[in-house]
């Protein structure tokens, strides 16, 4: 290669390299900004939650929160309610999503619109609607006893979680040829119970878990429904603590974040536990 040719080559190749390094620098700057934007408040909150004892860092706020009987009662209540809501959501959404994919594919946009409604309608409107429909003087009184109100609350939570649960399951089903798998199972003699629980459920399990954990997070932090129905849930407890204590709300927020991240980690872990899902990743 002559010197002139080498010169030409370098003038031709240098500008893209320069552009690439500028682009790379910009990407890193954006990434750093995003990390700081999300991490700094969390770090600040965590640091603040450790300052309960004067002059030194301690976990006193966490100890206070975890030893508070009200925390234990409300947290347990919300965990149980979230499990009930997940079961209810699954029982409602999984067969519906499968049925829509197999028998009513043209209805999918309508169903998707319906499942999005809880995001559009304010929770307080839904809660008041429930109170009007199911109060003690209605045709189906469900606010007369604690257990009936709990059932009503679970239905309310299931409604709130519907957009996330439906989308998670529908996305899982999208990776499968539901129609053909159903027909393959049917021709081998399987009934609907076997098709749903032995074929569909294991194949959308990871998607289903993400829907379940999202539901768990929603139920754990939900305030309006629980407050209006006067149930001892974790959401109202967090609001109450936030209004009456200084360091404990920050500790509660850190605990809530830890639980959420733990759930996300579990989703990843669950995906690895099923060998058949390895191909998808």
């Amino acid at each position, binding site marked *: 290669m002559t010197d002139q040719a080498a010169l030409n080559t370098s003038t031709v190749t240098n500008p893209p390299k320069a552009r690439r390094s500028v682009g790379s620098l910009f990407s890193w700057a954006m990434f750093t900004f995003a990390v700081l934007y999300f991490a700094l408040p969390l770090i600040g909150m965590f640091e603040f939650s450790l300052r309960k004892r004067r002059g030194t860092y301690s976990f006193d706020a966490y100890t206070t929160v975890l030893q508070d009987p009200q925390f234990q009662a409300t947290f347990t209540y919300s965990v149980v309610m979230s499990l009930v809501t997940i079961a209810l959501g699954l029982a409602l959404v999984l067969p519906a999503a499968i049925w829509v994919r197999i028998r009513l594919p043209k209805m999918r946009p309508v169903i998707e619109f319906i499942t999005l409604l809880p995001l559009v309608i304010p929770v307080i409107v839904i809660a008041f609607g429930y109170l009007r429909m199911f109060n003690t003087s209605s045709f189906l009184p469900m606010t007369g006893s604690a257990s009936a109100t709990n059932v009503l609350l679970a239905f309310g939570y299931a409604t709130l979680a519907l957009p996330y649960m439906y989308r998670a399951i529908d996305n899982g089903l999208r990776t499968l040829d539901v129609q053909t798998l159903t027909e393959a199972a049917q021709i081998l003699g399987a009934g609907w119970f076997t098709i749903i629980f032995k074929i569909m459920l294991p194949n959308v399990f990871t998607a289903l878990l993400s829907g379940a954990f999202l539901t768990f997070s929603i139920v754990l932090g939900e305030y309006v429904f629980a407050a209006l129905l006067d149930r001892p849930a974790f959401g109202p407890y967090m609001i109450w603590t936030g209004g009456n204590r200084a360091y404990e709300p920050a500790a509660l927020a850190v605990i809530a974040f830890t639980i959420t991240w733990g759930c996300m980690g579990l989703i990843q872990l669950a995906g690895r536990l099923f060998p*058949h899902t390895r191909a998808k990743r």
Partner: protein
Amino acid sequence: MPYLTINHLEKSFGPTRVVKDFNLSVDKGEFISLLGPSGCGKTTVLRIVAGFEEPSAGSVQIDGRDVTNQRPNQRNIGMVFQAYALFPNLTVAQNVGFGLKIAGIGRAEAATRTAEMLRLIGLPDLGGRYPFQLSGGQQQRVALARALAPKPRVLLLDEPLSALDAKIRVSLRQEIRQIQQQLGITTIFVTHDQEEALSMSDRVVVMNGGIAEQIGTPFDIYNKPATPFVAGFVGSHTGFDAQVIDPAAGIVAIDGAQLSLGQQLTALKGATIRLALRPEAARLGRADGRETLLKGRVVQVQFMGSIIRLSAMVGDTALTLDTFNRPDTPPPPLGTEVEISVAARDFIILGGAGDGIATEQTPETQRLA
């Protein structure tokens, strides 16, 4: 008595009639192919037999029992799908044993049967793998084993080879046929690939527009096509319009040249009948036993490996002929004037073999030319 009978089957989707008065009798152990273009109704017929579609009219009987109103899971039919449809969460062995488990077969017996099926398809060591760890051909073999494991009364194959590459298709179709003959299972195979249908089947049903145009052995379907559609769809041919000169002697004229078809014609003198000539029936140059000599100009040469397909203009007709590929005889260049010899007996009379039924010049028959 036929083992599987389809009587006057009709199916409409809204205003569209997809299957029209379809009738078929299949003997026990027979391999039948439903062959036709997309939208001809072949898959719909198969799905009605499986129970996935409800017929608008007609009935399906298996072994003398009407199964028309039975659900798919009550029919004891095996089916292989185009998209394999293996259950992704189950291993190969679990997939094959799925039907056995549903049927309540004991664990030991099911394991034996599963192993037997895996040996049958030549994958005895892959029972522990998941479907995603198999190639397309292996997956389709497993799907076949899964369909056969519960010993179904009838096996349905819905274009099982369509998703595979050419070499695997050929080897797998031979395997499927071998396994079918070994087990003696009554089989209906849906395909749009004439080569598959002709090479695998005892009989072929050529479907078009929801009706069975012709039902016959592969030999008859190819050599005695009953309709212009069958002649056009199965194999290639050159179509000719011929004037009947002497029906009793079977003499006709094509573009003024007279030839004897060697059989009596039922069409009247002066009528126009439609004749077809397969590419392999014509020879380049003069050949013994081929008394009719045509002159043409080469307009197209397709090299297809073992054969070379030429297209030559003979008058206004583009005549297609095949020659064997010989390394020492290259194909004639385009524009070369050639002699083509044909035997009058090789002309196929369309619209009823040997009948010489006069055909109307519909756009379809025009197109065939």
